[in-house]
């Protein structure tokens, strides 16, 4: 094996890899289509804001005052009244059986208490089976009652002037697209590169490559090239579609974003190749790749907030390349941030990328011998 990197030899190898990928329509379709579709469809479908929470109401007061409170609850579409009966027992039963997500019970003496200036007790129970809905709903409900209580008080209340930066319309897709983009590139990149290189081992063509004068680095980089270009296309495609569908802005430096994304894609492919050096069959490839990719996704802040994780897991997520890529992507795309702000993440990602490439190159070489 010659140690010198030869561009000509490399280009021949690249051509071979491209022909192998382009030769199989199914593979091509499966590498390009799902990433683009997943980013846009899931960006459209995922909605972390709760709405249509089915609220069973027992209005035992049946007065203008109680109807006013009910209106306050159902005005903004978070709570939707169900037709569950008018007494407390039926409301509780509806929540217990899961037919209603929450139940509101207004006592019979509600109106008289209000008129006397006393403070009536209103019960609100949540179905805690979905603790996500229950927690957010409880927060909404207390805010609704606080605002309801505050209206018409004597002093002008202290106002809270709030502006939302970066995403003034609070479009949820703007939040999800960078996370989904990173996740999908990781999961597809890992699976595709790992399974393609194990295939070579499986079919015995790895030995043929060993007999050629090509160095292991040339072989490895040639393997990366076609997948890399496909994923760049997939990434640009999903960004363009997101712009078209969700009006996703691009506020930062595009070349900077492309450079970092390339680094990230190479890192994902290298992890895949690294996995392929440990295993021998396709079954093992899939199992290990998915097992690597899904926790990386969950511990990245793409869906579940990192701040809410137990401290040990937060520390652990610092070695997750996806976490850094997502925070970079959000910063560049949505905030227009430059290197002066995102450099810690870039540094971490670069360190990780270099480590992944060098370990997988070493492992790959030892495999060739």
């Amino acid at each position, binding site marked *: 094996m010659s140690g010198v990197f030869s561009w000509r030899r490399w280009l021949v190898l690249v051509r071979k890899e491209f022909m192998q990928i382009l030769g199989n329509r*199914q593979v091509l379709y*499966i590498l390009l289509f799902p990433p683009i579709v*997943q980013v846009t469809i899931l960006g459209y479908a995922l909605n972390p804001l709760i709405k249509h929470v089915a609220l069973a109401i027992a209005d035992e007061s049946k007065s203008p005052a109680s109807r006013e409170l009910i209106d306050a609850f159902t005005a903004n579409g978070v709570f939707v009244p169900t037709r569950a009966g008018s007494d407390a027992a039926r409301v509780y039963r509806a929540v*217990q059986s899961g037919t209603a997500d929450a139940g509101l019970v207004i006592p019979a003496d509600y109106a008289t208490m209000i008129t006397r200036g006393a403070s009536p007790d209103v019960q609100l*129970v*949540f179905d805690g089976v979905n603790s996500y809905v229950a927690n957010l709903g409880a927060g909404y409900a207390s805010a609704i*009652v606080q605002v309801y209580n505050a209206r*018409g008080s004597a002093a002008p209340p202290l106002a*809270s002037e709030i502006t939302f930066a970066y995403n003034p319309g609070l479009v949820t897709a703007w939040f999800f697209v960078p996370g989904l983009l990173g996740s999908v590139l990781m999961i*597809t990149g890992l699976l595709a590169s790992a399974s393609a290189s194990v295939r070579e081992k499986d079919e015995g063509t790895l030995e043929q490559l060993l007999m050629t004068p090509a160095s292991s680095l040339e072989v490895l980089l040639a393997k990366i090239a076609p997948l890399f270009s496909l994923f760049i296309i997939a990434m640009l495609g999903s960004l363009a579609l997101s712009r078209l569908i969700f009006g996703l802005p691009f506020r930062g430096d595009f070349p900077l974003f492309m450079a970092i994304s390339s680094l990230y894609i190479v890192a994902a492919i290298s992890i895949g190749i690294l996995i392929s050096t440990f295993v021998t069959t396709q079954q093992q490839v899939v199992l290990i790749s998915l097992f690597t990719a899904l926790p990386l996704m969950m511990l990245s802040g793409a869906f579940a907030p990192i701040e809410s994780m137990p401290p040990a897991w937060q520390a652990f997520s610092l070695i997750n390349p996806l976490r850094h890529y997502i925070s970079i992507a959000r910063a560049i795309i949505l905030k227009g941030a430059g290197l002066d702000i995102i450099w810690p993440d870039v540094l971490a990602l670069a360190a990780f990328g270099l480590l992944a490439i060098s370990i997988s190159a070493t492992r790959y070489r030892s495999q060739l011998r």
Partner: protein
Amino acid sequence: MNLGRVWVQCLKELVEFRRDPLTVALAFGLPVAMLLIFGFAIRLQIKNIPVAIQDFDRSAFSRDFISRVDASQELIAIPEPLDRSPAAILDAGAVRAAIVIPPGTQRAISEGRPAAIQSIVDGTDVVNALTIKQILTATSAFVSAGYAPPPAAPIAPPFDAPNVALHERIWFNPGGNEALFIVPGVYGVILAMYPTLLAAIAMVRDKERGTIVQAYASRLRASELIAGKCLALECIGLVEALAIMLIGWAVWGVHFAGDPVPFLLATPLLVCCQVLLGLFIGSRMTTVTSAIQAAGSVNSLVSFLLSGFLYPVTTMPLVFQWISYAVPARHYINISRDAFVRGSGWSGTSSEVLSLAAIASILAVCAWLPMRRMQLARGA
């Protein structure tokens, strides 16, 4: 259908599975490891969001306000020097909101003049942003009330100043233990993922190695081939299920809250759905790589995100709510949460169990159709 041949086909699959010890170890070790990671690390409840506060007022009110913001579970108040602009603080990216208490706020409140607390909130994470807004609005209303002048005249009844006391209770999971929400959901995600993968690979491997031709040439019928493979993978899937549920019980104390029968029926049904889906994918795809991509990435992302595991299905656009009815994991997660948390038994879950059975029968036909002639596809 000849049951003897089904049984032999099933044994053949199990022997093939056992022959590769690493795959056996992975097929059981990975679901368990995934359960542990997800069960310990995924928390959706918002906690510890850092917000910067610039206090220009330096009064009793502003100190009260800051300590009350900090006392909330959701936010951490970080005092910020006064020389940076709020926009620059937010741009630096270390905090999710920059809050300014302008000078003279307490005096304005106590004299009954209008005053305002200004904040810029990072809108990138929408749930975070709305939570911050809620807390700031509630806190400023609550704290300022203590500094407001006493009303000049008693307020006129009836509705001018209602004083409703809201008592909120969360049933079934009063401690807000998030593991009780996440773990029964993870059961569904894991059982939707791994059996499908193993099935897709089992199907396509025969094709890629060419050994399927031997099955085609034998007297074996398509229904027997599929039933045999399905039975073998069903066994593997059920052992996986048992393993993760024992661990869920040992680690988080997740146990049946009521009648377990619907859940005990639904588990084999879900595994059956997922295995049939895997066999279907395997029969349509020609190479292991493409089968893996289809079964692996698409199926796991769909089971993961369109099943209600994280965000409730009802918040999705209507079209996706309809699509999610076809996702077996969605029904299973509902049944699983009911069995382990609510415990309402058949009354709350019978329709979900029926849906799973319906999906399983549709998938059985789908898996059988492309194989029914037991012939090589033209051009293959």
